[in-house]
């Protein structure tokens, strides 16, 4: 019996630049594989991302959900908000379970056991799964180039278990495993793992990109590019968590833009054909990191010297993207020009922003 050729889906790229109409596009598909009624927090960044991602993917899709807040909050009491097949897997099994699904469809379609176009196979792993316990399994799936999209919805912590530090938690971020105290005034002392670059560098045949819920059209287009890429694709998406970051609920999308404008979350694509980074995404503004930090309770303990360290880190990120630094940002990396978060002037600044 001859093998049956596997038919792949091609999803159209939404015609909108990443500037201007960031939130509205008439070409958006009407399908809603991720329906309302789940139990995530108000303003939950990961679930906003989940909706955009599944909307971009459409109905011929299978979702894989390793343990994390998007497992527990979305599927409590045996109810789930998925209009497409979804399976839970273990937190360390993100890449491997997904690889199993993809391999099954390759074999079943080829052997005539399942008929139809190869489904979109998407794994939604939190950063705990993606950067720590499931890292090897994801690397395995990317290396073997299964036709699937693995997403790290990055809320920079283990949120499901009550806010613990992951290797994506930023320097200075307060979590229950990295609390500030007299001996550790900055709270988390380590800088985050550069996860997405690690995936691009180690698996250069894969489509790899970063995105943020602050730029929905860009995010959805990257989902589609990842799905259209024949082989494995990887997205790391900034998804703020109001429970862990401690911010005003309506500001999730604002944070999603500020984190990019402050240089703390570089947005780029890795082009697997050209084997090079594409840094053409430009936020509208470039701001000092303090504008992002001051909106979040998790950074409320930071001293000027810690903010300066974070600014230095952000400036390095801009440089890595080949972007010229304005003088103001260079100045902002000097502690002399900064104030502690817990000062009256800082509190006033926060009050003004809100």
């Amino acid at each position, binding site marked *: 019996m001859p093998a049956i050729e596997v038919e792949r889906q091609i999803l159209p790229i939404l015609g909108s630049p990443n500037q201007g109409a960031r939130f509205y596009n008439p070409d958006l598909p009407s399908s809603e594989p991720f329906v309302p009624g789940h139990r995530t927090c108000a303003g939950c960044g990961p679930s906003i991302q989940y909706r955009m991602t599944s909307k971009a993917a459409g109905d011929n899709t299978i979702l894989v959900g390793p343990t994390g807040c998007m497992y527990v909050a979305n599927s409590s009491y045996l109810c789930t908000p*998925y209009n497409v097949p979804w399976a839970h897997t273990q937190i360390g099994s993100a890449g491997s379970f997904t690889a199993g699904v993809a391999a099954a469809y390759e074999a079943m379609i080829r*052997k005539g056991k399942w008929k139809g176009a190869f489904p979109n196979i998407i794994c939604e792993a939190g950063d705990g799964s993606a950067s720590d316990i499931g890292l090897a*399994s994801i690397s395995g799936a990317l290396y073997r180039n299964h036709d699937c999209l693995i997403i790290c919805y990055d809320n920079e912590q283990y949120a499901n278990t009550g806010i613990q530090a992951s290797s994506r938690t930023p320097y200075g971020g307060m979590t229950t495993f990295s609390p500030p105290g007299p001996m550790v005034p900055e709270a988390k002392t380590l800088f985050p793992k550069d996860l997405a670059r690690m995936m691009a560098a180690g698996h250069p045949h894969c489509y790899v990109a970063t995105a943020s819920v602050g730029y929905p059209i860009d995010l959805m287009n990257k989902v589609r590019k990842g799905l259209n890429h024949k082989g494995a694709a990887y997205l790391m998406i900034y998804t703020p968590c109001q429970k862990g970051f401690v911010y005003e609920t309506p500001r999730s999308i604002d944070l999603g833009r500020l984190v990019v404008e402050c240089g703390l979350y570089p947005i780029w694509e890795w082009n697997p054909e050209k084997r090079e980074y594409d840094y053409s995404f430009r936020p509208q503004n470039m701001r000092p990191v303090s504008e992002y930090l001051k909106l979040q309770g998790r950074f409320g303990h930071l001293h000027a010297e810690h903010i300066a360290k974070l600014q230095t880190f952000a400036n390095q990120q801009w440089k890595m993207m080949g972007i010229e630094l304005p003088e103001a940002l260079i100045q902002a990396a000097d502690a002399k020009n900064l104030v502690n978060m817990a000062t009256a002037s800082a509190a006033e600044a926060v009050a003004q922003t809100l």
Partner: protein
Amino acid sequence: MATATEVKKRTVRINGCVASAQAAKYADVDVIAAYPIRPYTATMMALAQMVANGELDAEYIVADSEHSQLSISHGASSSGARVFTGSSGVGVQFAYELYSPISGSRMPVQMMIADRTLDPPGDFGSEHTDALSTRDMGWLMGWACDAQEAFDNHLMAYRIGEDPRVLLPQMVCQDGFFVSHITSDVELPDSGQVKEFLPPYKHPYPLDPRHPVSHGPQIMPEQGPPLQLERARAMEGAVAVIEEVHDEFAKIFGRRYDPWVEEYMTDDADVVFFLQGGHAVTARFAIKHMRDNGLKVGMVRLRTIRPYPTDRVNEVLSKFKVVGVIETNMGLGSVSSGGVLYGEVCAALYESQHKPLVLSFMAGMGGEAIVLDEFYWMAKKMTEAQKRGKIEKRTHWVGFEE
């Protein structure tokens, strides 16, 4: 390329590992998840070659760990593919997290195990502790004693595990080296016979975009009891299916196995060995010799340990005066301070009106061969107990005592 080459029945001389690979090929598996660890590796080597030669159309995945092997298998089985994986020793342990999720989601993943002693230290020899440590995770489990039986068990396990009345994963075990690396004659069937015996895998609720379902949503404690009860019932329900499938197998392939125990020279026996796996081959030899010298000795070999045939073990072992359990596993600090089989045997005998004396023999530890002299020594301990009418010492470490 899809393979549907018709093959005719033939006898080949292969080892247990290759017999397992042959069974996977006959079962036309769709996804294979491999990771190397001795001694089971040879099974995956054989399958890799079959895929490379175009004899088997399957996705052959070299996983990054045993944890990933089992997760890949879980994902593939959940999608509707027939899956084959395997491991040995500490590899079986590395994947431990997945055993309960796989049986809990009722995915009939098949795993071949060629036993290997757990670390420390790095010992290649066969000891059953690796697989037995997972015995309560909801997997069907049993041991073969030679390559032919291993081949047959794989086919039967797929049929049993994939039965909609069961839907449970299976560990098809064989001793490392004693079975996995010893060649013997294995009859490979006509592909038509296998087609008749083993229908294609069809899970009732796969991950299929046309019929969306959710697998494994989170529950609250009050939702736990019914879910656990269902899994327990699946295991109980497997009993009837296992018997049915063994009958069907005998009809189609002409080899009849008792699904639960093999009895060897037990008709008038006073004392019997109770064991699992490859050491049965030596035991038969030793028993024949002892019978020549007038000793009424026999053997009961457990073929299926999960589901455990409690009533059958009770009924069979109640016929004898003394039962000597040959453990080949570690149950440190357990009931007998020896292995775990002793407790399983004694619990089955608790309600017996004619309880035999039960001894536990720690033999073959670390994968050392149990030689004829050791069988004779164990038989001597059993007949001494029979004469005394009571146990003086519950657990004997064979080779360390007079």
